[in-house]
């Protein structure tokens, strides 16, 4: 069963530093081509660790239902 929430990074603000990827206990974050972070929503458990360390404060935890 998937978690209720999942992390989402705002690409327009992400600095691609990789702090979130280093913090993620599930290895669900990938820094895509050095441009920004991309979270694997299926693997993400919504723990929020990435959002807590993001220096640009660009990660939000979204409700899964909200994703259309």
């Amino acid at each position, binding site marked *: 069963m998937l978690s209720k929430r999942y992390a989402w990074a705002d690409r327009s603000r992400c600095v691609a530093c990789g702090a979130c990827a280093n913090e993620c206990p599930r290895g669900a974050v990938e820094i895509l081509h*050095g441009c920004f972070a991309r979270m694997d929503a299926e693997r993400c458990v919504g723990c929020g660790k990435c959002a807590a360390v993001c220096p640009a404060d660009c990660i939000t935890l979204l409700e899964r239902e909200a994703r259309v």
Partner: protein
Amino acid sequence: MKKTHWYDYLWIWAIIYFALGFFNILFAWLGMIDFLLPLGFAVFGGNKYFCNHLCGRGQLLARLGGKWKCSRNRPAPRWMASPWFRYGFLAFFLTMFGNMIFQTWLVAAGAASLREAIKLFWTIRVPWGWTYTAGLVPDWVAQFSFGFYSLMLTSLLLGLIVMVLYRPRTWCSFCPMGTMTQGVCRLKRMGKDGASEKENV
């Protein structure tokens, strides 16, 4: 449990680098690795592997602010990660880097004499003569060391200040090398799939 790699200990290298500068300023040249490697990864590999895995400074800030709890862990003001501030700071930093190169050139050309001091925050001159024995290397080599170490130490201090005030790796949000390498990566991906801000999913 995440697997630990050899590069996870590069924060020790960051401490060693800054410590060496207190004994022999010529070690400052080693900092060029931190300038050239990230650019190499970005230009040839189209990635930020250096920022993501190899940056000793980023690891040190993460460790000091995270594990060792030296950070307030508050979100930084939004303007600090905004493009105008990031690119503005990059322009300022590159101008200061250019100025440092110019000073080195003046010394090399004999138009200025070697100053055995470092400049913190581009303004505060701190005598640093004990780290260099005159005549050991050409004057310009030593001048570059003093200038480059000034830049490195200033940026470390800025990083530490924002680490304490905000989140551990706040420095990364406006680090000139990070801005530059991300810019290069974006340019390389321009027009290709999977790296557009418009696909903000």
